[in-house]
């Protein structure tokens, strides 16, 4: 992969965001991200096909038929093949995987994978209805007003009960603080302007209030409502030659796994992300590595508790010890395995359909030394980066392992 580009993740927290003023729509974000990548790969003429990952433009923006926006990015994409893929918040990951499969099948040497979501068209209380589409609709009636925060609040509650609330909330608050610290280093991050002096204490002291939100998460435990898009080119070696870029400037996809869990079934254990665990373990097993060989991970922290549970799914900590692992600083940017180095979903932002692609862009930036102020050290003996993208409550999972080409 090469030529990643992120728009700003727009929404509350950004100084330029004003919910009362008219804002750019899908077209703007698709165009900016698409053109951002095309400019790095010698233009649209080099692209064989396009993939758009998106979750709910049909409701957020009353817009379907998204492949029709590919030629809008650049006339050079006109009459070329295009497709859109949907797997809720895992749509971006599917856009990457679709690009990878096209390249591996030989139908494309260069695929443009783009993820986008524009969600600030609705207030959060109505946006919650739309995002609930990532769950099984017959469960909606019994679900919380804020459906997905409710789902992960239940997970957090189960974790509290098993392992202790104060202990868990310390880990979750550290997760939040890491996200903010990292986001402050990336000008495109939604929390880039965040100036809270002590994010850890702020989060820890904010007791969850089930009366108006959910029982076991506060608002800082949650990713925000975001507008944004990300794009990256998926290329074969042939494709790299076509655009005239040396392998070392790109990242190699060394392993990819996609897994689905039955959306109609409740998780068997609320304190475990079963599908994520399956997918990451399968990917690492295929490569013959463990999580300790990874230099960095971009994981799907739609909620801080999801960050903790994913740390455990990776095998970095035993069940129940993920919060300790995070509290001990191992996932911070100076820790053993820096995670979500530009803020992740909580810090950088979560334009749902765009997130999976944003994760890949961040790994590409980190492994090729392009991460600017957010750059971390990539140890020579641990050259791998991983992205974990999740749609719904541990339902649509994409895991990719990368190393510098």
């Amino acid at each position, binding site marked *: 992969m090469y030529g990643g580009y992120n728009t700003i993740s727009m929404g509350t927290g950004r100084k330029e965001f004003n919910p009362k003023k008219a804002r750019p729509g899908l077209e703007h974000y698709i165009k900016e991200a698409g053109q951002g990548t095309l400019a790095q790969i010698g233009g649209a003429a080099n692209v064989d096909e396009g993939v758009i990952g998106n979750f709910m433009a049909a409701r957020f923006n009353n817009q379907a038929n998204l492949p029709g926006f590919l030629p809008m990015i650049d006339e050079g994409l006109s009459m070329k093949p295009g497709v859109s893929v949907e797997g809720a918040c895992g749509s971006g990951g599917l856009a990457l995987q679709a690009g990878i499969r096209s390249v591996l099948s030989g139908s494309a040497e260069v695929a443009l994978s783009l993820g986008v979501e524009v969600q600030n068209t609705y207030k959060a209380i109505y946006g919650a*209805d739309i995002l609930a589409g990532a769950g099984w609709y017959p469960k909606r009636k019994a679900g919380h*007003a804020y459906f997905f925060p409710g789902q992960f609040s239940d997970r957090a509650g189960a974790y509290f009960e098993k392992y202790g609330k104060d202990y868990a909330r310390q880990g979750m608050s550290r997760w939040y603080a890491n996200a903010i610290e990292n986001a402050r280093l990336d000008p495109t991050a939604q929390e880039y302007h965040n100036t809270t002096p002590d994010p850890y204490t702020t989060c820890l002291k904010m007791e969850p209030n089930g009366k108006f939100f959910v029982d076991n998460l506060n608002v800082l435990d949650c990713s925000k409502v975001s507008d944004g898009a990300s794009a990256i080119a998926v290329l074969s070696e042939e494709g790299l030659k076509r655009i005239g870029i040396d392998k070392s400037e790109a990242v190699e996809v060394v392993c990819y796994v996609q897994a689905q869990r039955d959306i109609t079934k409740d998780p068997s254990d609320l304190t475990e992300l079963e599908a994520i665990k399956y997918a990451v373990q399968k990917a690492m097993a295929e490569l013959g590595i463990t999580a300790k060989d990874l230099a960095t991970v971009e994981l799907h922290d739609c909620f801080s508790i999801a960050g903790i549970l994913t740390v455990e799914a990776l095998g970095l900590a035993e069940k129940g010890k993920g919060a300790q692992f995070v509290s001990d600083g191992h996932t911070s940017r100076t820790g053993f395995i820096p995670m979500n180095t530009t803020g992740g979903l909580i810090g950088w932002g979560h334009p749902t359909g765009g997130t999976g692609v944003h994760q890949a862009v961040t790994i590409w930036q980190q492994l090729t030394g392009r991460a600017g102020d957010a750059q971390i050290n990539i140890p020579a003996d641990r050259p791998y980066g991983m992205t974990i993208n999740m749609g719904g409550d541990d339902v649509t999972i994409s895991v990719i392992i990368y190393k510098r080409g």
Partner: protein
Amino acid sequence: MKYEERLQNVTVLGAAGKMGSGILLLTAVEMANLSLQPENKDKTYVLNAMDVSDKALFDLMGYLRDQVRKIAEKNTVPLRKLYADREDLIENFQVIDEYIFRVLNIVRPTTAVEVAYGSHIVFEAIKEDPALKNKVLGSIKQNSKVEPWFFTNTSSIPITELDENAGLDGKVIGFHFYNPPAVQKLVEVIRSKHTTDDVYEFALQYAKNLKKVVVPSNDYAGFIGNGHFMRDALHGINEAERLTAELGYVQAVYAINKVSQDYLVRPMGIFQLIDYVGVEVCKYIMGVMNPYLENEDLHSALLDKMVSQGVMGGQYASGAQKDGFLKYDKGRPVAIWDVEKQEYVAIEGFAADVDAWLGAAPAKLQPWKSVNFSKAKNQILEETFAEMNTMTTHGAILAKAYNKRSNEIGNLLVSSNVAANAEDVNTVMLTGFYHAYGPINEYLK
């Protein structure tokens, strides 16, 4: 008759006005919430929104819809629980829309005052005119088919007079909301000499359900809120007139408005507040209160002049501020009305000169917005005013004099038995006027 039965049929008079619309909103929501309780499911609830203007009633329904939506959006978590048995209401927007319909479906807009004849509770928020109030309430009392209880939102007329002149037999109570009623926490509750205990107890229960802070006031014209505000406003006007010789009129108005807002850490300057309430309304309230006051003349020739020139202040139906002493652009004062030339004079033309005359502001001074909601509010105020106490700039001197007068007014309200104690006076200013601290304070010397 139980609380929820009495609220089955209510009329708000002046329902489309500034205060009436807020009272209508809160009452409609309270009635809808009662109607949603399982034990009340078979009962009907009627809220007559009576006003003289069809146009205003038309706008009122739009206002109600928007406000109820906001309330429903904030309360979606409990509303989903309330509608748990409604299988057809699945998504938040469905629950919210259903609730809005429920509230609006209780409200009957009308221009016919006769609707009140069937109401157990009549809320009065009509013009602050004693003769009009006597006539309307008295007529309803005579023609009513039930025994109505009257709740009056008067901010200045003694309740005992209303009670006796309209022949309400003690079934009346002062229930004075602050503007806007949906936002301001305060309600002043005022019993007439004859108000019966059942009416008083109902009033307290109703206020509690509306999550209002109740401050009892004794039955003196203006009560606590206007008792302070009108005298405070008159002080500001007198100060501006005094400074006119030195600074010029518009400059003096600017200076006093600035001192009363910035230096005293209040949400608005005094002239902006007069505009907010309405220049004409202030003049009128002073006129209602003045005959009852001993040893003072609560009257301003300047307000008379403004009204005669048609400069009224007040608000548009949208809530936007109309021009008065100050001219507003997107809510910000940009010019000041010159009563001699009868035109607005842009503030930017003289602000720097007046600011220089006022002198350097205290270094620790912060705007009201950042002080009032700060956990360290008391500490900030103490430090700011301690610094101001040592200063001799024109601004600091005016601020100290202003606070001293506010303090005197507060103490007068207690010594003249309008308020039971200093705390009640301060609570009114904190919750009805959103001040960061009460008039009875030790901050400024």
